């Protein structure tokens, strides 16, 4: 006699226990602390904060630990926490021109006010495994590096875009909404055509790998927009809030961000003089790859606004914005693991019928 499979409940409990065991790994190996993750896996923490859209290093480190290093899972954990938080206010726009920059490079001017600051970057490392890191140990005595961090905001670190803008060489900042408010797609559903505010929010939360591939595709001709890295800067900016009841802005935090401003192919016609166009990327922490890819995709998605004929998926707002979110994508792809017995059975019945009908009507 067949007895229907029961015990989903017990199976789930045991699966959770196994998972906890696997997460901890060999108990003889010391457990990771959140401070270690925050300090030594800082890029992981930065990515989880950016795509989780919550600036909290400790919670992001906790998410990385709980997710055993699966960053998409960690982003999901942080998002599910973030969604429960009350919205207390909306900050004033960050002033990245007042950034205390740790790194600042422009690929379009050899030198410029404030200078180029290389900062801590993988860029010119030779990618040779450093076997010296294999064993933990105190770093040998090295001469301290003079660091930009801690300096007062350098008043002579103007944004490259502002320098271009002064000459009218680049288009002005695209207008914000008429009412001055910014959209929030974690509160309101995404609609099309999306405003640039919502688009940038979507891209900032978007999966780094997806944006990288989309940005890369634009460089290979799918929506090419002739980019130059006008400026990339990374460092601390202050966040301020101007509550109505106080009437003046109050600084509430300082956060690290990476900003990328792309300068793209110019436009012009017989009636308007030629001007470069913009693409923008911003991410929490150190996230240069993400910010650059975001800027490329932002520019590609401005095709329609700029009167270009969208010809590639990279320029198709619905295509890009509907598929950029790793939490949505990961959930929906993996939902195929859920039982589909019923739908499949319905298909089986039909296919068997169709095959039977085909057999009986086929010429003998």
């Amino acid at each position, binding site marked *: 006699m*067949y007895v*229907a*499979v*029961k*015990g*989903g*409940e017990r*199976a*789930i409990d045991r699966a959770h226990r196994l998972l906890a065991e696997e997460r901890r790994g060999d108990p003889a190996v010391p457990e990771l602390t959140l401070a270690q993750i925050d300090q030594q896996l800082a890029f992981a923490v930065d990515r989880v904060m950016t795509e989780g859209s919550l600036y909290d290093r400790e919670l992001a480190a906790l998410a990385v630990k709980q997710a055993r290093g699966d960053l998409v899972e960690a982003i*999901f954990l942080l*998002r*599910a926490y*973030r*969604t*429960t938080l*009350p919205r207390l206010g909306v900050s004033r726009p960050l002033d990245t021109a007042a950034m205390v920059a740790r790194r600042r490079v422009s690929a379009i001017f050899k030198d410029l006010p404030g200078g180029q600051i290389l900062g801590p970057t993988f860029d010119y490392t030779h990618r040779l495994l450093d076997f010296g890191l294999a064993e933990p140990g105190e770093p040998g005595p090295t001469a301290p590096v003079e660091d930009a961090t801690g300096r007062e905001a350098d008043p002579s670190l103007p944004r490259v875009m502002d320098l271009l803008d002064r000459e009218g060489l680049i288009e002005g900042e695209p207008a914000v909404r008429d009412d001055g408010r910014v959209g929030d797609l*974690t*509160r*309101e*559903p*995404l*609609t*099309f*055509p999306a405003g640039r505010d919502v688009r940038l929010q979507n891209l900032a939360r978007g999966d780094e790998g997806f944006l990288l591939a989309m940005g890369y595709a634009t460089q290979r001709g799918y929506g090419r927009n002739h980019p130059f890295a006008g400026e990339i800067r990374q460092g601390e900016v202050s966040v301020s809030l101007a509550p109505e009841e106080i009437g003046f802005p109050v600084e509430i935090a300082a956060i690290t961000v990476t900003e990328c401003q792309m300068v793209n192919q110019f436009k012009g016609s017989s009636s308007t003089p030629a001007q470069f166009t913009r693409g923008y990327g911003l991410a929490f922490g150190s996230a240069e790859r993400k910010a650059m890819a975001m800027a490329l995709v932002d520019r590609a998605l401005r095709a329609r606004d700029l009167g270009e004929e969208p010809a590639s998926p990279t320029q198709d707002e*619905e295509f890009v914005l*509907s598929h950029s979110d790793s*939490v*949505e994508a*990961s*959930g*929906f*792809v*993996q*939902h195929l693991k*859920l*039982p*589909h*017995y*019923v*739908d499949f*059975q*319905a*298909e*089986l*019945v*039909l296919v068997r019928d*169709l095959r039977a*009908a085909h057999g009986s009507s086929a010429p003998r």
Partner: protein
Amino acid sequence: MSRYNFAYLDEQTKRMIRRAILKAVAVPGYQVPFGSREMPLSYGWGTGGVQVTASVIGTTDVLKVIDQGADDTTNAVSIRRFFARTTGVATTTRTDEATLIQTRHRIPETPLAPGQIVVFQVPIPEPLRWLEPREAETRTMHALEEYGVMYVRLYEDITRHGRVAQTYEYPVIVNGRYLMRPSPIPKLDNPKLDRSPALMLFGAGREKRIYAVPPWTAVKSLDFDDHPFEVEHWDRPCDLCGARGAFLDELIVDDKGGRLFICSDTDFCARRQAAGHGPRA
């Protein structure tokens, strides 16, 4: 769980979702966009259904959760536990005892009663999606009631296979107006939507849409005069309870072609067995 509100969502969010539900009830079959929240559950695993349930559940409700018609499949267990934990309401497996039924892919075999609410988990709410991938375009098509492409698609099936080859999420017209995709229920369940005494709510979390079929609303499965709508049938009864006309799951029991066909609705099947119905009944 004391740090979370009753049914997890905060009251502001519930109010927002209830407003969307009211609109959905007022315009049967119309997909209402709503500010879907990120839930502690994967997208595609019932986030829409969970948000709808969380917004309508009250302390006196009795909740039933099924997946594929069964109360004991892992995702049904997981969602039922989520609500047991966040609301403390009574749960049941009996369809007739439940005031609120969250479901994935099935409508229970036991007839529904007035006052009951069925909440469907919906992966893709847009019935025209496979015919037109763009949301901006499909919304216009709904506004203009431009559903010819769907009839053409069904007609193409008939020319190719001699019949409509759509077995689940078979498209329906609700209240003579909106084309609606019944969350992927098998078409055998479609007639249960028509003039149902229960309120049917559909939640799509990832796609951020809610739609509804209010009680006693006409729901017509698309068809042609010469090719009327038909449901699938099995030429054998359930191997456990002998039911005919119920949706049967097929189980492979050995590697010699052995098969069992049993009701997908576990509550229905178990209660028939308890009432003395057997394989040969």
